[in-house]
């Protein structure tokens, strides 16, 4: 353009203003890009997980009819009432019947891809409804891991022809796998389920809640309402603030060195896991609890004291109920964090392969995040989908918990 020196003063000012406004727009756009980037990363993460998870909620099933009416197996339906019905069926040769029906319908190569334990699913269906013994039963049993991989155009090449052929006949299909939500861990991706880990998580969270909530709330009440201002109180406050910032893995070291030394028999039990996570969650509850108690106006306390309530009555009858929504919000957020925590639980041994769901607080268990970690180490491509499905389940739980916290905050929190 033209030489700036020849321009009038007004034009120079206008040019400079334009430059400054352009810088302003660039800066604003930069900020928008930063926020957009976070949003896109989140969307990308959720989309990849969900896309993978769709396959993880499904399994490859072999479908073929089993003719029980032809009399290859004689079982008295009354015997299927008892607790050992499965043994009765096994004794009657159900396994052979299923294998025979499979080879009739699928051919020998197809029947070979039926896992050894698959007949048990037929057995469960028969126990559910013994009248099925009188007719033809349409079995839908899990295919072997290799065949499932072949169906995904993956794994051993020689099985892909068989998979394509069975799929074309409609005998090998991918179907929604309800069992994924009700089984325990297993060695192959076709047989794994999430219920064991989910139950372990629930038991662990229950222990955490029962320990961290009362201790956290009581500590918050003490520090906010009664604690004298002295050295001890300062030490308590400093240690709570520090505990809230200590890396979670350090709590795992504590659990390993202290809790497992006291209870050596409860390695990888929800009890120990819950205790470790409780120590981690407690500071979060204390801090949010103190804020909630601080937010209750002094006039409430003054009014209670003025009509003759004692200091304990004032707090427990008046202040605490008003602070409760805030405390609960903080508790749920702390629990959500504990639910997603993995590292401290690895430290205390919750990484063992546990096939059956835990039946108590002291039996070996695994939890959802640890299960995700363990599956993520597996090589089989089927585990990628299963892992993603488990992640989606975990995220759904977290979403529900956080949604509940937001609801509580909006519904019950008072602005004074």
């Amino acid at each position, binding site marked *: 353009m033209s030489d700036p020196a020849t321009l009038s003063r007004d034009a120079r000012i206008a040019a400079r203003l334009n430059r400054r406004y352009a810088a*302003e727009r660039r800066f604003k756009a930069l900020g928008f890009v930063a926020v957009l980037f*976070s949003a896109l990363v989140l969307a990308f993460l959720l989309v990849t997980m969900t896309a993978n998870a769709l396959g993880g909620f499904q399994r490859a099933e072999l479908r073929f009819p089993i003719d029980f009416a032809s009399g290859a197996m004689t079982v008295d339906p009354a015997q299927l009432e008892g607790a050992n019905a499965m043994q009765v069926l096994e004794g009657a040769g159900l396994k052979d019947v299923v294998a025979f029906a499979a080879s009739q319908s699928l051919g020998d190569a197809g029947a070979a891809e039926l896992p050894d334990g698959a007949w048990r699913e037929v057995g469960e269906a028969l126990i559910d409804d013994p009248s099925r013994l009188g007719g033809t039963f349409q079995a839908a049993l899990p295919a072997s891991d290799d065949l499932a991989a072949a169906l995904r155009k993956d794994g051993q090449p020689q099985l892909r022809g068989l998979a394509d052929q069975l799929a074309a006949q409609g005998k090998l299909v991918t179907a929604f796998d309800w069992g994924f939500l009700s089984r325990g861990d297993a060695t192959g991706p076709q047989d794994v389920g999430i219920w064991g880990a989910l139950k372990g998580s629930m038991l662990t969270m229950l222990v955490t809640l029962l320990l961290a909530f009362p201790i956290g709330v009581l500590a918050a009440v003490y520090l906010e309402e*009664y604690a004298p201002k002295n050295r001890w109180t300062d030490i308590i406050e400093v240690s709570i603030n520090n505990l809230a910032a200590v890396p979670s893995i350090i709590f795992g070291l504590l659990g390993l*060195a202290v809790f497992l030394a006291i209870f050596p028999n409860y390695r990888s039990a929800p009890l120990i896991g819950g205790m470790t996570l409780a120590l981690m969650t407690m500071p979060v509850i*204390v801090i949010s609890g103190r804020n909630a108690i601080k937010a209750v106006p002094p006039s409430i306390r003054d009014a209670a004291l003025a009509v003759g309530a004692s200091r304990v009555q004032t707090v427990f009858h008046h202040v605490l109920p008003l602070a409760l929504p805030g405390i609960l919000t903080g508790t749920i957020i702390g629990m959500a964090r504990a639910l997603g925590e993995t590292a401290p639980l690895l430290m205390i041994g919750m990484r063992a392969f546990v096939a059956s769901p835990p039946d108590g607080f002291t039996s070996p268990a695994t939890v959802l995040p640890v299960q995700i970690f363990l599956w993520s180490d597996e090589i089989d491509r089927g585990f990628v989908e299963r892992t993603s499905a488990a992640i989606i389940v975990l995220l759904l739980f977290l979403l529900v918990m956080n949604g509940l916290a937001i609801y509580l905050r909006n519904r019950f929190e008072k602005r004074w």
Partner: protein
Amino acid sequence: MSPAIPILLALALGLIGWLAARSRAWAMRKAVRAEGGELHSLPNYHGWYVGLWAVVPALAFAAVWSSLSPNLVLQQVLSDPAAQGLPAFGIQRDAILAEAQALAGGGGATGFQKGSAALVEPFRAAMHTYAVIGLIVTLVLGFAGGAFAYLRLRPHFTARTRVERAVMVGLLAASLVAILTTFGILASLLFETARFFSVVSPVDFLFGTHWGPDPMSEPSSVSGDRYGAVPLFWGTIFIGAIIAMAVAIPLGLMSAIFLTQYATPLLRKWMKPLLEILAGVPTVVYGYFAALTVAPLVRDFGHMIGVASASSESALAAGLVMGIMIIPFVSSMADDSIAAVPQAMRDGSLAMGATKSETIKKVLIPAALPGIVAGVMLAVSRAIGETMIVVMAAGATARLTANPFESMTTVTFQIVAMLTGEGSFDHPATLSAFALGMVLFLVTLALNFIALRVVKHFREAYE
């Protein structure tokens, strides 16, 4: 017998005591009021007084007993003739005993060890004896406590004062748990670290540059030159404090500026929770995302720009994802510090004709800088303590390199690796995890301590 039974029984006794004392107090109140008087405390407090006396001693005993009785059981079993055949010491003896105990406790265990079957009966008998003793003493204590308190009830009995005193003790005890936890962490780390340093010298550990512990080696032949933790410190700093912060600081700061200064209320209402979701995603999910999606992309990018050594487990992948995880944290800290800058400073700058971005860059950020720096320090302390992302995406090889495409290991990774490996608990390789934990604990503590002080000073400066 389940340990829950004595606890439930003690609680039931407490409930009975509560009900009995309350109805007695009601009756007393009726009698006293007929004479124109009044009870010192409300009937409920009499109930709580008796209930506490019935429950607390009994539960205290049950807790002590449950930690004591396994040893007593073991003593009795070992004095049994059937225990004479046990090997004198060592792992096998422990294995047999543990298995016999598991068998005796039921729960579907199966016997593998030779000789455990013979011990099942003595175990069962001993467990039964001590469980019954514990139960009886618990009940007696609960009953005695309740009866003692019940007999003390009078119209002028100061039940409320006493119950409130107990409540205060409970409150104080709850707040001491935090100190106890801090103390427990310090004590356990110090103890195990001291054991580690008795084998490996602290100088070798802190300044050595070769890390390669072998958990299966003979503990006595361990030498310090395999325990140089400098590569781990470097990996931790490189991933957590350099790569992650290079992502998190600009993005977090710009997000905070945009959301507080430019965004419309509607946009803010939607974007803020979105950032919070990013903060709420569990680290194991980020780790999986890093390993499955980001790491292959980073590797391919490395090959594309001609880095032949680009590996599928890279410091860059772990650092990038960690940075994304930290964005909301930096953003909310920056948000707080910018909000703490007095409105007058902002207004002054705008009144002089500065544009919004000039005000932000030349007034708000310099004024908020101490707070932002403190926030970054807290973010660094969180990043270096982060475990799952590096465990899943950063790799296991300890390297001193500045090439972000190579795999690199961190302090937290090695803690996990050493403690989940095959080595025995007394091996220096296992103990080294506690020394690493100690370093991590002290560094995060120092960072947090300084950061909190800075924030406090900064707040006071503007108040």
